């Protein structure tokens, strides 16, 4: 693999990103003032529940937010490419696929059921002006082989002939075959079995290292992030509430939401009753509070200031936390 040696992974800097959706109740923010840096060559995991804005954030990386949504503020700076928020038309289309690969949810059928995988691969190559069709097929077979599949057979298959895990690998292949250096995986293991999940995560880790990628994994499952990611970012109600090195965040979560989320995972060993449910339920686009902290309704550390002021994301060394209570504790 020639690409592996070049290994110049680009960094991605998201700054002050706000994405709003147009609803009958006006424009509501699905992602609000999010700043996030994907270090070159790292795997970053974003964890969030439904309605946290994690998928919208991922789509913003490709400037692919669909109406009624739009990016209303902020920038997404990708090394060697520039601010994709300003991209339009042909330039944007070329950037997707060639620079940024997107792997859709395994559960979703992102493959065309009427075409073989190979045919879809050639369509992809054609739309990106790839001259060397043989080279493209060879590269695809190599990638599939790398992921433990029979490349020739898979390229000749229709979607329904592939299992969930195989489809997911095909998705990864399609995202990487044009030599994208930034890869976004949206819920890569949802609806897959534990064993298949473990396999896919192993593949993600290995391919990431071999090809020198910058990878972003979006998931609702902390376990997935814990397995693959170097850095972990937690989203809630459209805000990034905590981020930092995965092991540090898991071992010593600061934000009350992160704490609650980790506590709510039943564990294989130890006292069962240690697991505690988080009270309340996650907000939707319509119920996210307009002012103040988005998490206060479910928070045990709620203070008066939380009702009025949205806590700023404050850096504590490599960790960034957006919580009034944490700030108070740090200063005390």
């Amino acid at each position, binding site marked *: 693999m020639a690409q592996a040696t070049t290994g110049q992974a680009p960094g991605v800097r998201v700054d002050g990103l706000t994405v709003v959706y147009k609803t009958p109740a006006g424009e509501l923010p699905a992602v609000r003032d999010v700043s996030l840096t994907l270090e070159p060559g790292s795997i970053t995991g974003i964890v969030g529940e439904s309605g946290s804005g994690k998928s919208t954030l991922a789509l913003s990386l490709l400037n692919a937010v669909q109406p009624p949504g739009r990016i209303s503020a902020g920038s997404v700076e990708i090394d060697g490419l520039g601010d994709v928020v300003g991209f339009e038309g042909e330039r944007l289309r070329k950037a997707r696929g060639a620079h940024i690969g997107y792997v859709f949810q395994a559960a979703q059928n992102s493959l065309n059921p009427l075409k073989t995988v190979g045919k879809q691969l050639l369509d992809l190559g054609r739309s990106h002006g790839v001259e060397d069709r043989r080279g493209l097929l060879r590269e695809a077979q190599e990638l599939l082989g790398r992921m433990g599949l029979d490349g020739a057979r898979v390229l000749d298959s229709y979607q329904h002939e592939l299992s969930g895990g195989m489809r997911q690998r095909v998705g990864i292949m399609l995202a990487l075959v044009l030599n994208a250096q930034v890869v976004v995986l949206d819920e890569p293991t949802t609806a897959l079995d534990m064993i298949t999940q473990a396999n896919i995560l192993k593949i993600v880790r290995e391919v990431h290292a071999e090809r020198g990628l910058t990878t972003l994994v979006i998931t609702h499952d902390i376990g997935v992030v814990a397995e693959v990611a170097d850095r972990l970012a937690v989203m809630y109600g459209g805000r990034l509430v905590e981020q930092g090195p995965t092991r540090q965040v898991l071992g010593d979560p600061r934000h009350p939401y992160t704490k609650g989320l980790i506590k709510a995972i*039943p564990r294989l060993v130890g006292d*069962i009753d240690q697991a505690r449910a988080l009270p309340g*339920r996650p907000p939707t686009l319509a119920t996210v509070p307009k002012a103040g902290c988005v998490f206060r309704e479910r928070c045990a550390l709620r203070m008066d200031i939380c009702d009025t002021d949205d806590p700023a994301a404050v850096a504590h060394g490599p960790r960034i936390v957006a919580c009034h209570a944490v700030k108070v504790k740090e200063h005390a």
Partner: protein
Amino acid sequence: MITGNGIVKTFKQRGNMLGAREVRALRGVDFSIPKGGAASFIGESGCGKTTLGRIIAGLETYDDGEIVIDGVPMSSLTLKRRQPHFRKIQMIHQDPYSALNPTRTVHQTLRAPLALRAKQTGRSKAWMDERAAEVLSLVGLDPATVLARYPHQLSGGMRQRVVIARALTVDPEMLVADEAVSMIDVSLRLGILALLKDLRERLGVSVLFITHDVATARYIGDDGDLYVIYRGQVVERGPVDTVIADPVHPYTQSLLSAIPVLHGLELPGEQPVVPLEALNAGQDDVGCLFAPRCPFRGERCDTERPLLQLTEGVPQEHACFHPERRSVIARPMSEV
């Protein structure tokens, strides 16, 4: 008490003109779930665990074997006579979105089974409304706010609670929860699991939990039995905690090894088994069903099928010619 002996189920798939292809979903499964107890079936998708759950809930027929509900063997009854027995076993579906009729309010949804019940026992309409409010309170919902709502006005977690409330209207003896939390937001999952646990304690309802996530199975009933199912056969079974701590079947070991490790909170097990490649329906008639994927297979495995037998030193059973304990699960850092 619900027991099953040698349950066999074969699906005939629509094949070509030459004949239908047969898929063996269950190849003779025994189980036993005590009153008020718990049991969990774990395995990959397609292993037959859901089919078995549906058979136990009376939603599917079986080809061979016997199910005994509270001492009454089902084979002694006609299909129609079996219904009241199977009604004591209620299924909680995975998808709370399709499990409720979108055109009916919570009140209408609960009223239908209650009306039937009221007719059978000669109770009044007032009792129906009282009972509807009661089951909703049991599952942690406020009747006054929820009764008049349509499913689309409820969150996934609330819907699943309504589904459980509906099952409770017939005073079930057992709930069969098929991946009951996999489609629910992470922060709300534990609430549903805790509810099932709570119903066990308060109402003495037994819970059969079908999942691929061993940790949730453990949360609901660590006093119950864990059944590890592979291609329609139970390959290991025993009390949840001992199977987790001392798995001897290589399949159980790879299942447990596949559970993500919360690095930072946990350390991986010392002898994890390499996660297996995807399940391919392979050899069917001779040998161990798991042999084609087994990293430890020997010659005997290709010619003979292992049967469930007692495991030495622990109160559990396994179906393997090369049982060996391996410490595969992650341990909390605090314990190490």
